[in-house]
């Protein structure tokens, strides 16, 4: 049974005393005195009918209610004994309370709603729900909350209430009243302070800093480093700034400062860094007495001194701690960026389990490492290494260590004086401290300096090689040369005998097996007793022997301090003439020649290939190479081979130690273009044919095999000026390199330039051009000069006639306004009274052969530039119509261009268009043509006057005549005078 509180509204108030009776079961009624609520006891489940009867003096009234579980609100109890405990350093509020006495006798789910407020402003800054089971009376609950703002910055209050959430109740959820406010006071006002103080936080966190002003002080500014951030007010005396995503601070921390009024500076420092990030823990022993564990610190924590990371390394089996002074030392020098701790080996313990803890104010990391002592041996390099070269092919190494090791596998590195490296492995048995171990090293070369160094590792469980020991050097002893010299000869026969230059190649160090001190040369005639000998110093590689024409056997040996090499023999045949076919042509490569030949008929001891490295010099630097028997090809290479040089190569067969010439070859490693020009001589066979002849280019200038010649020829306009070449360049390609002449046909009468160039596979050489002038016969040349000259003279005469006959026409055309412009024949008389100053001194004449026809009727003279002339030829009676077309521009002084016209040689009437070059108005073009002031001019000529004068006749005169000066002009006037006199006749 539960107790429910029922409440109702009283309805309309009466002045009469009213009592109520609640009946919820037929047998259960309770009276309520002047109240509108009452307590009833009911079972929780099921619907209940409740009858409330109001009774006063006037009567009673009953209301009936159907109440179900849904209509009942469950009000949980108010939390009791609420206590708040602050932790200022961690800015945490811890809340403790008792759930209270529930009306329900069974467990119900409940929710506590907790609110945190800034007391001064009564501002709710945090609300949180706390779900719980209210299953026993006076159950204690706990809750904590970390404040973003330091708790000292302002007073914080907490309150809590219960809310019913039990679904079993299936009723309306009610909430209890709030508990009484529990307040944590902030800093008092005795002095100004800043919070938090000297905190260490992680990079990236958000942090709020506050400044609380003391009594009589006021906050002016609040600054994060040099950064001014938005300021929020927590209360009257307290302000705060929040820095989000804090960056790492430097070693002195980041300063947050509060400036107060009256002036006072407050501050606090925050250290922003990272928690430890130590990783890659590894442990090993170097001497089986101490275990060294090392690790990488990972990311820098950015925290120093008291905030730095502290390390502890614990061996968990023994429970002992390692010594980590080096890692925990403030001024720890990182070795290879690693920290390390030392742990002494515990006697009898082989397995070790290490736990490394790295801790700083922001966190802790733990790393484990387990090792078997003997599987993690990293030996020291040998403390002592001694080398003793005891023979020519072996040596002894002596090694020792300052500590003991078990079986070790070792390597020694052997480096020869020419830097060849060789690694050899060996093993060492258990090694006592400071005991010498001897290692024999064999398979060495005599007379060779070797440097030795060694390193070792544990043989049973390889872990790491030790570092290399220091290098020790020794030189092996000498042996007699093991190989015969490679000997060859160069024979020069004279009438007195044969000079044999015996040459040999120095033995390589591998064959000399010591320092060669001299060479011994012996020779004797074949099948004869009696040997001659000579000694050559080590500095030479040849010796010359003067022999007669007998057959000789020559032997050479190299000698060092221990002995001499096997004898190397060659045989000289005194009367044998070496003969071979024509040399075959071979092509080479930039590095040398790839040679092959047919095998010799009786070759038994291989072949010798011989060539000169510098064929152009007196000492051709003969080279040779021996080819083993049955091998008929080889490649000869040399850095001395040069492109464009012709190399002769001889192959000798060797038969029973007699050498005979087998084949000769010539070739170039790389063909170049000929370096000398082909010298050409030319011979003109006719005006259309030329024969070119040229000489051979010297062989040393070929620089390749001549493949042919190219003949270039080109006609030239101006022989003297080569730049003015014209015409198409012709080419004749001659592919036969033996041809030395060529005939070029189908040429024209002109100057030709011929060039002949030889070419090889490397390109075309240079050429020396020659020029040939091809001309026609002398008669043709003569005619070519005379005809133009004759035509020119005739045209001059014709022009004179033309000018004379057209004089009046021109005057008529250009001077129409001049009084008395037309004077015909004898009517043309000098006007009286003007005789002293005649305009034109022309005497009348009778034109007996030429008729001057007036301008074409209907054509304006001024507009027309066409003047038509009809000439009557007295000889044949034919009429010539001449049409003169002049430029329309006004050009009184323009240099006339009057073509010669031979009227008499123009039998048929024809029209000629004589177009002058238009040069515009050029009145000053020929000043001499119109000079008035010249004292030499006679009166008649003086009247020519200005070029613009209306009576000027100057432009009737041909330009050439006026240009010739006074004499020409006077002759011109004489000519007109002559014509006047003819008229008189």
């Amino acid at each position, binding site marked *: 049974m539960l107790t429910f509180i029922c409440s109702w509204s009283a309805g309309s108030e009466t002045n009469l005393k009213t009592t109520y009776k609640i009946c919820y079961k037929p047998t259960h009624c309770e009276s309520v005195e002047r109240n509108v609520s009452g307590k009833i006891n009911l079972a929780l489940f099921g619907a209940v009918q409740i009858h409330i009867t109001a009774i006063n003096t006037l009567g009673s009234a009953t209301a009936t209610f159907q109440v179900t579980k849904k209509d009942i609100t469950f009000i949980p109890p108010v939390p009791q004994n609420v206590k708040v405990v602050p932790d200022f350093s961690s800015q945490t509020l811890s809340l403790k309370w008792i759930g209270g006495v529930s009306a329900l006798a069974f467990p119900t789910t409940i929710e506590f709603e907790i609110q945190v407020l800034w007391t001064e402003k009564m501002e709710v800054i945090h609300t949180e729900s706390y779900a719980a089971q209210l299953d026993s009376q006076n159950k204690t609950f706990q809750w904590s909350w970390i404040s973003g703002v330091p708790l000292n910055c302002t007073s914080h209050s907490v309150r809590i209430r219960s809310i019913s959430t039990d679904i079993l109740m299936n009723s309306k959820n009610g909430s209890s009243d709030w508990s009484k406010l529990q307040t944590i006071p902030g800093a008092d006002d005795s002095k100004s302070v*800043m919070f938090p*103080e*000297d905190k260490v936080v992680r990079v990236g966190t958000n942090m709020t800093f506050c400044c609380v002003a003391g009594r009589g002080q006021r906050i002016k500014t609040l*600054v994060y*480093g*040099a*950064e001014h951030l938005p300021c929020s007010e927590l209360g009257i005396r307290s302000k705060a700034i929040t820095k989000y995503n804090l960056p790492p*601070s*430097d*070693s*002195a*921390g*980041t*300063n947050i*400062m509060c400036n107060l009024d009256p*002036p*006072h*500076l*407050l*501050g*606090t*420092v925050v250290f922003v860094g990272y928690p430890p990030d130590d990783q890659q823990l590894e442990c090993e022993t170097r001497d089986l007495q101490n275990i060294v564990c090392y690790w990488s610190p990972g990311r820098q924590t950015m925290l*120093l*001194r*008291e905030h730095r990371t502290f390390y502890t390394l614990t061996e968990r089996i023994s429970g002992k701690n390692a010594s980590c002074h080096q890692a925990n030392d*403030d*001024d720890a020098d990182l070795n290879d960026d690693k920290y390390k701790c030392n742990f002494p080996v515990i006697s009898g313990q082989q397995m070790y389990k290490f736990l490394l803890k790295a801790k700083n104010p922001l966190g802790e990391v733990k790393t484990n490492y387990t090792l078997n002592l003997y599987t993690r041996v990293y030996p020291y390099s040998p403390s002592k290494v001694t080398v003793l070269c005891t023979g020519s092919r072996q040596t002894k190494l002596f090694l020792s260590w300052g500590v003991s090791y078990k079986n070790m596998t070792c390597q020694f590195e052997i480096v020869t004086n020419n830097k060849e490296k060789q690694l050899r492995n060996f093993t060492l048995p258990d090694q006592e401290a400071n005991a010498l171990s001897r290692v024999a090293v064999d398979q060495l070369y005599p007379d060779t300096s070797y440097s030795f160094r060694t390193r070792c590792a544990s043989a049973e469980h390889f872990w790491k090689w030790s570092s290399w020991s220091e290098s020790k050097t020794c030189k092996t002893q000498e042996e007699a040369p093991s190989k015969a010299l490679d000997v060859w000869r160069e024979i020069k026969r004279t009438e007195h005998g044969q000079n044999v230059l015996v040459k040999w190649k120095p033995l390589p160090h591998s064959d000399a097996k010591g320092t060669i001190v001299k060479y011994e040369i012996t020779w004797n005639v074949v099948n004869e007793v009696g040997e001659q000998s000579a000694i050559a110093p080590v500095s030479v590689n040849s010796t010359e022997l003067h022999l007669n024409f007998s057959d000789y056997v020559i032997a050479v040996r190299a000698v060092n301090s221990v002995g001499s090499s096997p004898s190397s023999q060659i045989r000289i045949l005194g009367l044998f003439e070496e003969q071979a076919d024509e040399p075959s042509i071979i092509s080479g490569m930039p590095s040398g020649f790839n040679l092959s030949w047919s095998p010799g008929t009786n070759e038994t001891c291989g072949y010798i290939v011989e060539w000169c490295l510098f064929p152009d010099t007196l000492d051709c630097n003969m080279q040779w190479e021996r080819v083993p028997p049955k091998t008929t090809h080889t490649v000869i290479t040399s850095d001395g081979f040069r492109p464009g040089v012709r190399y002769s190569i001889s192959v000798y067969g060797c038969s029973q130690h007699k050498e005979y010439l087998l084949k000769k070859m010539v070739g170039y490693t790389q063909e170049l273009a000929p370096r000398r020009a082909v010298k050409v001589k030319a011979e003109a066979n006719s005006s259309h044919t030329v024969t070119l002849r040229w000489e051979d280019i010297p062989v040393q200038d070929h620089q390749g095999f001549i493949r042919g010649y190219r003949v270039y020829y080109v006609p030239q306009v101006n022989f003297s000026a080569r730049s003015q070449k014209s015409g198409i360049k012709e080419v004749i390609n001659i592919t036969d390199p033996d041809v030395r002449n060529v005939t070029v046909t189908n040429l024209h009468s002109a100057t030709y330039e011929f060039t002949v160039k030889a070419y090889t596979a490397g390109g075309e050489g240079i050429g020396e051009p020659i020029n040939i002038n091809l001309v026609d016969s002398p008669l043709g040349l003569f005619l070519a000069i005379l005809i133009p000259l004759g035509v020119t003279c005739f045209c001059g005469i014709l022009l004179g006639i033309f000018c004379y006959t057209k004089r009046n026409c021109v005057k008529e055309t250009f001077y129409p306004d001049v009084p008395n412009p037309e004077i015909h024949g004898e009517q043309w008389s000098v006007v009286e009274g003007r005789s002293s100053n005649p305009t034109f001194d022309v005497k009348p004449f009778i034109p007996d052969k030429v008729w001057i026809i007036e301008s074409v009727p209907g054509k304006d003279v001024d507009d027309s530039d066409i003047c038509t002339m009809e000439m009557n030829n007295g000889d044949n009676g034919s009429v010539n119509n001449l049409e003169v077309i002049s430029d329309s521009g006004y050009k009184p002084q323009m240099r006339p261009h009057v073509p010669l016209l031979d009227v008499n040689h123009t039998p048929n009437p024809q029209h000629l268009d004589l177009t002058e070059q238009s040069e515009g108005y050029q009145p000053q073009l020929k000043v001499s043509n119109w000079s008035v002031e010249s004292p030499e001019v006679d009166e008649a000529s003086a009247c020519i006057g200005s070029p613009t004068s209306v009576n000027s006749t100057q432009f009737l005169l041909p330009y050439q005549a006026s240009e010739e000066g006074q004499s020409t002009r006077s002759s011109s006037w004489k000519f007109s005078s002559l014509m006047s006199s003819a008229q008189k006749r």
Partner: protein
Amino acid sequence: MPPEFFYFFSSSFVQLQCQGDPFNQSDFRPSPSSQPDLPRPLPEMWHSLTDNERLLDNFTAHFLLSHHLRHTQEEQKELNPNATVLHALLETSLNRTCHLLANIRAVMDNMGVAPPDLDAPLPGNVTIFEQKVKGYWVCEGSRDWLERTERDFASLVDKLPNF
């Protein structure tokens, strides 16, 4: 500038450079209220002070400064372990202050002035920020008191030609 001034000036400057923003800004000037407890280097009644009083002032100031410098040096070693230049400057300043103190003591003995009975100042439980500000004022105070000492001894030498 005597070489001593250079060291005190430099240590003051370098000290500021090592403390982070805004200490390293040129216009930074902490409020005088944060100054450590030292005799004032330039009192208004300096002229009315006797030679003995001046000597006592000097002795007291440099005695206190020597301890403050030691504290600052230790604090900066902890706070700025890598600032070797600062540490060297503070070490030199401390040595010079100690030598100066010994010389003042010798003069006082010579003049029959008994040294005062002084308690060495303790480092105090202050925040890191307060250490930084105090370090600044210690360096400034050392420089100011060096000037005062130079002035006092100049005056003393004039009065005591045999000195």
